[in-house]
């Protein structure tokens, strides 16, 4: 295999990987799981407050947001692809701002909740959650504006 064929093969592989998306039917499933895990987060925090259960809920929230984020639209045309790319870019920039503002947010949340907050802004989980949540929200907002 010469170098041109090898690079063509590689770029085809990258294209195939970057185009990976779930079928449109997965979106309601992702939304349903997101709502269930989101409710469970608060129920757990204000009732049993189990740490293992809390970890499961955190990962459940991330996976359900990832499902929503990776799901195709019924008609996945070039406008949707552009909106999707825009939403990933905005979410990435928003994530950087969040990390920059995190020390201030930590201080404010600690001050308000006296160190007992369930949503204390720290850890990789929250950054990933904010990235995915803002991507999904921005995507839906931009899509709505084009209607």
């Amino acid at each position, binding site marked *: 295999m010469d170098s041109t064929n090898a690079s063509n093969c590689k770029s085809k592989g990258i294209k195939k990987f970057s185009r990976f998306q779930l079928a449109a039917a997965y979106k309601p499933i992702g939304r349903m799981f997101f709502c269930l895990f989101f409710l469970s987060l608060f129920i757990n925090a204000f009732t049993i407050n189990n740490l293992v259960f809390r970890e499961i809920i955190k990962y459940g929230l991330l996976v359900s947001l990832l499902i929503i984020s990776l799901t195709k639209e019924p008609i996945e045309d*070039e*406008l*949707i692809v552009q909106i999707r790319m825009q939403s990933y870019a905005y979410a990435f920039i928003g994530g950087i701002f969040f990390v920059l503002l995190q020390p201030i947010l930590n201080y404010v949340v600690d001050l308000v909740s006296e160190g007992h907050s369930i949503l204390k802004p720290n850890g990789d989980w929250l950054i990933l959650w904010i990235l995915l949540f803002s991507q999904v929200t921005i995507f839906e907002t931009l899509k709505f504006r084009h209607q």
Partner: protein
Amino acid sequence: MKNRLKVERAILNLTQEDLANKIGVSRQTISSIEKNRYIPSTLLALKMSRLFNKTVNEIFELEEGEF
């Protein structure tokens, strides 16, 4: 960029939905192009050009100061 998409569509008596189905995009995409909120790709412009039997330049036109 200005476009005559709405006019060309009216000449062929096509709804946004009909046009969208013919060129394989969503109705929102057609609506966004007509409202100048989205500039289509060359591929989509060529598809429209073939459908309307007009050149791309006859459908899409640069505005003052865009060149």
